[in-house]
């Protein structure tokens, strides 16, 4: 599904990713763990197509399509979805207006008809109910005045509506209390399917108790330095990242 080969990325002359290789298969939930500054968020932004990053080498293929040649909106239409670590507040843009614009833009890009307003509202309400979101949240401007947990729920709501094939969760657990973590995780788990892959970026093993990964990758110094099963997350929780730091220093 997703294939990253020898990805080298810098921002303002600072090298962040150093020849990163990563493969995520269809239906797989892959977790990426690593210390602060190891390049996890950069990886998520580069896959989604943020402009600030300079890709010096390597490629990112989604189902064989070269993502690096596509604009962010084209990547979204191709199936990429990034749940932001810090979802942005957009004053003046109504949540429903935004959701409808996004959904219809993707449908249009895929050659589908626009959704009728009643069908759209039905879908949004159903998705919102599953995430235990109060209805008035949908009436406000996008993310404006939302708590950290509400913003993350809104990200998952968008994911549920847009039905992407490749989902990146960038530290979705940060800023969530226990209940919110459970609700968000259930939202994600409900979307797991043999046709959809997930890249779950996190600092802590805690999230992986709820969203159980198939594979765990350890990222350090802009590379994947170790890959294992879900037990690797437990090992990291116990030992920390010190081993990797030392190997770097040696």
């Amino acid at each position: 599904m997703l294939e990253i080969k020898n990805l080298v990325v810098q921002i303002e002359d600072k090298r962040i990713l150093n020849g990163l290789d990563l493969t995520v298969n269809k239906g797989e939930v892959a977790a990426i763990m690593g210390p602060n500054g190891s390049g996890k968020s950069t990886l998520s932004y580069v896959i989604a197509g943020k402009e600030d990053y300079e890709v010096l080498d390597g490629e990112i293929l989604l189902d064989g399509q070269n993502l690096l040649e596509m604009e962010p909106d084209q990547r979204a239409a191709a199936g990429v979805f990034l749940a932001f670590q810090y979802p942005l507040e957009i004053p003046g843009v109504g949540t429903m207006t935004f959701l409808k614009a996004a959904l219809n833009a993707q449908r249009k890009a895929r050659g589908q008809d626009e959704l009728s307003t009643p069908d759209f509202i039905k879908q949004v309400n159903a998705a919102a109910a599953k995430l235990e979101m109060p209805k008035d949240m949908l009436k406000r401007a996008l993310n404006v005045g939302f708590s950290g947990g509400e913003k993350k729920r809104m990200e998952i709501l968008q994911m549920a509506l847009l039905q992407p094939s490749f989902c990146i969760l960038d530290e979705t657990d940060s800023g969530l209390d226990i209940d919110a973590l459970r609700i968000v995780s259930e939202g994600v788990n409900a979307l797991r399917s043999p046709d959809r892959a997930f890249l779950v970026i996190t600092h802590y093993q805690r999230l992986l108790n709820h969203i159980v990964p198939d594979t765990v990758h350890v990222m350090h110094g802009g590379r994947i330095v170790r890959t294992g099963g879900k037990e690797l997350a437990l090992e990291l929780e116990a030992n920390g990242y010190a081993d990797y730091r030392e190997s770097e220093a040696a």
Partner: protein
Amino acid sequence: MADVTLMKTPAESALAQAFESAKNMLPGNAESRAQAFEQFSSRGLPHRRVEEFKYTDLRALLREIAPFANVPSAEEAKAALRESKAFADVSALQVPFVNGHFVREAVDFHNLPEGIEIVPLREALANGHEWLAKLSPVTWASDNPIYQLNTSFMADGVMIRVAGAVETPVHLRFVTAAGSAVATATRVLVVVEDDASVTLLESHESTDGTNHQPNDVMEMIAGDRSNVQHVRLNAEGDKTLALSTLAMKIGGEATFNSINVVAGAATSRHQVYAILDGENTNLRVNGASMLKGSQHSDSTLVVEHNALHCESRELFKTVIDNEATGVFQGKIIVPHHAQKTDGRMMSAALLLAEGGSMNNKPELEIFADDVQCAHGATCGQLDEDLLFYLMARGLPKKDAESLLVQAFLGEAIEFVENESAREALVTTVESWLKARA
């Protein structure tokens, strides 16, 4: 003392000539016109060394004076009004003007909404109507050269009196459709009595490709406890040079909201002169301008707090594409007796392209010591992070930009109470964005 002869520009000479030949034909008191023109001539067209016109150099912009428009025939007027699209979906009492002349046949004077009286200005001037004494409620506006030119040349207009709560909005529809360039000078006076309320829509349209030169003045006297909602749309043609002045004197405990939306004209300058003349009054003046190509648009505002406990809010939003230029000059004056004044003025500009420019000049002139006044001015581009967020959800760049521009202008437009008028303004923004994409 030696005689000093001021050098006149060709446009100034043409104006002098036009005034000479028109003054005996124009209705009303020739003396006050002559006086206004005298005042104008003593300084001529304002240029960049005149402080208030630093960013809108009328001497440079007004090279040729178009002839003043004749009264259109009934057929011409009808045809022009058929083409007019402004606020088409808003049900309102229509008070139309074509080529600067009031189309009185379009108004059924016997069936006006209750509380509305309309007097055609041309007749009023000719007969010396008693309401004429109410013209020029903001006395210092007569120092302004654009206002002086209007006073010199005003050929037509209406005077409207509003008593009681009038439900039906009144739509002053100005259409300039002459085949060749014309100048117009209209004057509208609206007197809103104590405790009365009214929604006034004002739209200005002219044919594309013609160098029309409208100079419109709207004056209002709003009584105590009155409520006035004023919505103005500049949808002038792409070669029009549009000058306009809104002057109002507002009584105590009143609510007065005014917005000017600029979606047209090659060059425009809208001047707002307001006096808050009674205690506990609320004034809101907003602007939303959409500029592209080489358009130039100036919003100039002076608000004088002349009583205790008044609140004024001014919010001007300007979107600038291509090489267009925006100007905002705003001044809040608080004399020593206007304690407890609360005034806030904000101008925000959004530059969508490299070549555009915005000139912001906010000023506060405060003599009272117990007031809250603030002003702010910002100038920026669309937020790249917000654009990325929207694009990451599948919106193509132009659509993402449009959504953010709509949100930006929406903040100035959303306070318009009349729903269909507000929707018409939102549609105006959408069409502007669509034309851009």
